């Protein structure tokens, strides 16, 4: 086997009565990589995570995590995975240290090891100062860090992070991204679900886009963006400059039709290899005596990808299977603001 998959799922299906949460989902994550599962609320992300973490049995399909079958070898598997995120919670009435010691004991560490490990993790996640305060008093970001620390007690080779930044403020989110990057650098395989396109773009090696219980696209961030179209150069010419000359100069570099807005003095040029073109463009504009108000090389965002693939934006759909997920989202927000 040339590739090692820490997570491999085939044809996962799960229904709740009339609601089809998953309609045949395949997922694969190579060891040591991050698989981003991207989709709106109610798309089936959490159901997939619950199956892969042994909390739910699939109606059909099968999956292995760390080489263990999620149904038949569930007991063994639980010692080798960590689950954290928006729902996997901490006990608000215990202190940070008490929480981690409890989880350590439940991972079957000795009392002494559980205490040592709790201290290590508190230190590592910058919770040492708050270690003896009850978790209820923690900020949203601190609570998520504690939650994540709780899933790292036995240094599990495979981590499931279910919307780890939902409800966090921008600073908390950036902090969480750094932590996740660190975990991956240390060699963990991570499955990360998110509604934030930016987050998948930043952290994931491979992205699976889920909508209505199905994978509607997969690939690297770049591959997904390529499906929507390539890069484009957006140029705004300062007043007084020869706008037509600018259009002529730029069309030499275009890989398709230019979009010209003379009123706004703005030209959009589809290009390939835009980063290499950029110095030439600047030099030519300068030589032609044109002043630029703005010059930007834009690549399509994952928002564009979602819109192209599904015909709708990555938004919540209240009429979907998501009713419970919506409530959770609301709770996460409360926590973050508490």
């Amino acid at each position, binding site marked *: 086997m040339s590739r090692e998959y820490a997570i491999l799922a085939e044809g996962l299906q799960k229904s709740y009565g009339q609601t089809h949460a998953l309609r045949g989902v395949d997922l694969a994550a190579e060891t040591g990589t991050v698989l981003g599962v991207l989709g709106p609320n109610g798309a089936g992300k959490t159901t997939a995570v619950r199956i892969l973490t042994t*909390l739910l049995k699939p109606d059909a399909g099968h999956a292995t995590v760390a080489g263990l079958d999620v149904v038949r070898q569930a007991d063994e598997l639980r010692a080798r*995975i960590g689950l954290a995120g928006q729902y996997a919670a901490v*006990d608000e009435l215990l202190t940070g240290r008490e929480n981690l010691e409890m989880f350590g004991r439940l991972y079957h*560490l000795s009392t002494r090891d559980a205490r040592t490990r709790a201290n290590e993790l508190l230190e590592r996640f910058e919770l040492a100062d708050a270690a003896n305060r009850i978790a209820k008093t923690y900020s949203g970001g601190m609570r998520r860090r504690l939650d994540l620390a709780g899933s790292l007690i036995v240094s599990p080779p495979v981590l499931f992070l279910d919307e780890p930044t939902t409800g966090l403020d921008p600073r908390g989110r950036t902090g969480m991204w750094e932590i996740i990057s660190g975990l991956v650098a240390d060699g963990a395989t991570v499955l990360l679900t998110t509604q934030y396109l930016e987050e998948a773009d930043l952290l994931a090696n491979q992205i699976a886009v889920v909508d209505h219980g199905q994978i509607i696209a997969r690939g690297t961030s770049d591959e997904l963006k390529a499906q929507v179209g390539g890069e484009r150069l957006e140029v705004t010419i300062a007043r007084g400059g020869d706008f037509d000359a600018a259009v002529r100069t730029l069309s030499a570099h275009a890989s398709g039709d230019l979009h010209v807005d003379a009123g706004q003095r703005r030209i959009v040029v589809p290009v390939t290899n835009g980063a290499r073109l950029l110095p030439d463009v600047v030099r030519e504009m300068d030589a032609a005596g044109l002043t630029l108000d703005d010059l930007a090389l834009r690549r399509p965002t994952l928002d564009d990808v979602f819109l192209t693939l599904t015909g709708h934006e990555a938004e919540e759909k209240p009429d979907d299977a998501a009713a419970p997920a919506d409530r959770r989202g609301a709770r996460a927000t409360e926590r973050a603001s508490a």
Partner: protein
Amino acid sequence: MTTATLPAKTTFQPQQRARLVWALTDAWVIAKRRLIQTPRIPDEIVFATIQPIMFVLLFRFVFGSSIHIPGVNYVDYLLPGIFVQTVIFGSVTTGIGLAQDLEKGLIDRFRSLPMAKSAVLTGRTIADLVRNAFVVFVMFAVGLLVGYRPTTNVLYLIGGIALLLLISFAFSWVSATIGLAVHSVEAAQSAGFIWLFPLTFASSAFVLIATLPDWLRAFAQRQPVTLMVDGVRGLLLGHPNSGDVWSAVAWCVGILLVFIPLSVWMYGRRVGR
């Protein structure tokens, strides 16, 4: 397959032990969690101490003077009834706590850990048993202050307290089942209490069953809480009717035989929201 591990200064290896040992150790960890929590919940302190004290004082001084039970001091008749009622009501916290854990996602986390499946429930019910033992102790003390005098020997006294705790434990498991079945903390609260009112008040806990109207008496005579109250009261008054005591024990054991497997099974299937 290569297994990457996150760096730790030392590696932390799970200990290897028999399944049963883990079931007990894990239950102890969960019980400890609950016992650490309890003093940090203001509602709990009120519910576990002030409310039982109020009940003792209320019934002793408000109703105590207008209810007459032939051949016995009303306070000595009454207090065993209040003890039973209080531990039964106290058992509702088991279900409320589990519903809270479900709602907050803690049950999901516990279920993703390599711990014994039964431990979340056994740990919780054992901790609630300890809590109820504390409540019984408080009520005894307050009872003694307001004139309660258990007229019994040490053996029966211990038997009476043991039966009280068995009742508490049995109702905790019913409550656990309710907590796992309903879909919110509020529902666990109302569903947990509502059926207990007719059971405890239409029983021999506070009044003589003979004084009840016929239709109610027919129910009150046969229902388990009456049997339990009569069992505890007999032991604490020093003249137990062995039929009452053993029926009460049989009811408790029967409840445990049904509700322990039922709630463990539900726990295994239940996913938080």
